[in-house]
């Protein structure tokens, strides 16, 4: 077992890892930038090392400073958390060269899964469905027509060189294909100097479903059920839950088996997450694999009753995985991310938490590094706390989350708490009728209701 673990992260996940280490009896080293001097991970770790100034590139992303910090404190392993260097294969390699343990998958796995095309190829190889589409750029209109007919409309055209929506066109009917292809190619040429376009099946309102997987170096490869993370804003998850209201036992079985095949194919070690899009007909498609612990891992922990971060540490130290596939889930768990942000514009809202009262009681878990009078620095992400509620079923989990959100008090900064208070009361959310377009439609419904309400109503 590791003698001392350095945590190459900050915020709630650093504290989460400290919890796991404390419970395993392993001393911890916190690292921090000068902006995080007053952070709880510094207070609660056994040792701490200041590694640099506020900008992440010079502190939390500074490989040399992290390795030096491990060396001067005698730490023999590093837990990267999520974000920062968690999916940096080079960092994992450097640690190996320095004889420091890495609490994560092997660097070659990180590299393989970090390459979208290679990851897609790997998934296809072991029979994990990917979104059907062209292999590389389209050659001519005829090929595009044949392919689109084969996979069915709507399809999406994407600039091969692109990103950010430019050169992107959704085509609903064959009649529009030619025009749209021309437009997309023109846009792509203008934007990226490369008019190459590829075509993919377009899912109108898919769900974002991810499968938690785990492997060890002794060949174990398991899945621990799914999380539904469809409620997103600009690809940032806001609410996550497990199980998904959309999965039948049979579908869970199929998606879990696909995820396990992929893990076996790459000899996956440690915790990972395989993200899928799920369409309304139960078709699911591999999107990507995250080769680290996820922000939303607590919802899985709450339903299966196991500590994933402890398992990460044990497995990284060479122990056999102590969990089995298809572990019996109990009840339902939902997580809300409480971000320090403007509730209207979503702009970050750093500052001092003049009042912080966290809800408690049965079925309520709060993962946070915040405390009353803590100053949220402007340099890092805006996550202040994760509020996770567990109930015997989804209705109870929602009721509990509602009362917990209602009893949460955060003053001094603006947060997403009020948005969550509205979401948990939304009939569409309560019905479990989710998709990646949920939040957009939620705001539209709210705007309509405000518009429809007679002037006098608020009196």
């Amino acid at each position, binding site marked *: 077992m590791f003698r001392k673990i350095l945590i190459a992260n900050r915020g709630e996940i650093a504290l989460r890892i400290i919890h796991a280490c404390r419970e395993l009896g392993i001393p911890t080293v916190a690292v921090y930038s000068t902006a995080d001097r007053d952070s709880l991970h510094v207070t609660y770790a056994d040792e701490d090392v200041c590694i640099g100034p506020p900008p992440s590139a010079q502190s939390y992303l500074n490989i040399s400073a992290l390795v030096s910090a491990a060396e001067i404190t005698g730490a023999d392993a590093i837990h990267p958390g999520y974000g920062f260097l968690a999916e940096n294969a080079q960092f994992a390699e450097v640690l190996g060269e320095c004889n420091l343990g890495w609490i994560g998958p092997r660097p070659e796995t990180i590299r393989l899964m970090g390459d979208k095309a290679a990851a897609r190829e790997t998934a296809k190889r072991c029979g994990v469905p990917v979104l059907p589409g062209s292999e590389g750029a389209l050659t001519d209109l005829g090929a595009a027509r044949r392919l689109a007919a084969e996979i069915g409309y709507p399809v999406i055209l994407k600039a091969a060189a692109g990103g950010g929506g430019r050169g992107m066109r959704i085509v609903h009917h064959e009649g529009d294909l030619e025009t749209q292809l021309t437009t997309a190619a023109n846009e792509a040429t203008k934007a990226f100097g490369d008019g190459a376009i590829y075509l993919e099946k377009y899912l109108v309102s898919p769900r974002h479903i991810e499968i938690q997987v785990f492997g060890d170096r002794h060949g174990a490869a398991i899945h621990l059920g799914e999380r539904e993370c469809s409620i997103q804003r600009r690809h940032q998850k806001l609410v996550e839950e497990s199980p998904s209201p959309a999965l039948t036992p049979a579908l869970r079985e199929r998606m879990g088996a696909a995820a396990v095949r992929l893990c076996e194919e790459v000899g996956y070690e440690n915790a990972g997450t395989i993200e899928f899009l799920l369409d309304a007909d139960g078709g699911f498609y591999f999107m990507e694999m995250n080769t680290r612990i996820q922000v939303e891992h607590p919802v899985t922990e709450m339903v299966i009753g196991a500590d994933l971060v402890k398992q990460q540490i044990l497995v990284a130290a060479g122990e056999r995985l102590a969990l089995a596939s298809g572990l019996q889930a109990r009840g339902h768990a939902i997580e809300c991310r409480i971000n320090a942000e403007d*509730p*209207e514009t979503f702009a970050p809202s750093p500052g001092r938490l003049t009042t912080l009262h966290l809800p408690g009681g049965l079925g309520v878990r709060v993962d946070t590094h915040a405390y009353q009078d803590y100053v949220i620095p402007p340099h890092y992400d805006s996550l202040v706390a994760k509020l996770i509620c567990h109930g015997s079923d989804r209705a109870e989990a929602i009721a509990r989350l509602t009362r917990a*959100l*209602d*009893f949460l*008090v955060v*003053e001094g900064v*603006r947060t997403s708490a*009020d948005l969550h*208070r509205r979401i948990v009361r939304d009939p569409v959310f309560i019905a479990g009728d989710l998709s990646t377009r949920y939040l957009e439609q939620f705001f539209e419904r709210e705007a309509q209701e*405000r518009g429809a309400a007679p*002037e006098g109503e*608020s*009196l």
Partner: protein
Amino acid sequence: MLTFEQIKELIELVAARGLEELQVERSGFRLRIGGRSAPAATSAPSAVALSAPPAVEAVAVTAESAPAPDLHPVTSPIVGTFYAAPSPDAEPFVRVGDRVRKGQVLCIVEAMKLMNEIEADADGEIVEIYPRNAQPVEFGEPLFGLRLT
């Protein structure tokens, strides 16, 4: 607990900033100021709400338990229902402006079907009668404000 001056300041601020609403709920004290009916914004920037369920009442200013400081309060010794008169048809025990003597019955507070006569604990003039007839009152709630004589 906010002072009268602080509440006035808050009202000015709510008005000046054009806020829709301000709620302060803390330690047994509640203040709610309904400002101008704003068109679209859902939450005021500095609104403080300990519990979220959207209240539909629109109160101008409600500041509980803030009787005028220069009056002597006669408070309710029990939880119950305040009655200004001995029976629905009868005249009230006292009216604003009446001079009362220590021991004089001022009202009835009914609790568990028992009619409890509440007496003046000092001589004075009735300046304020706080509860409405048949209104529930709590323990310690001011019923009358006397100017002592």
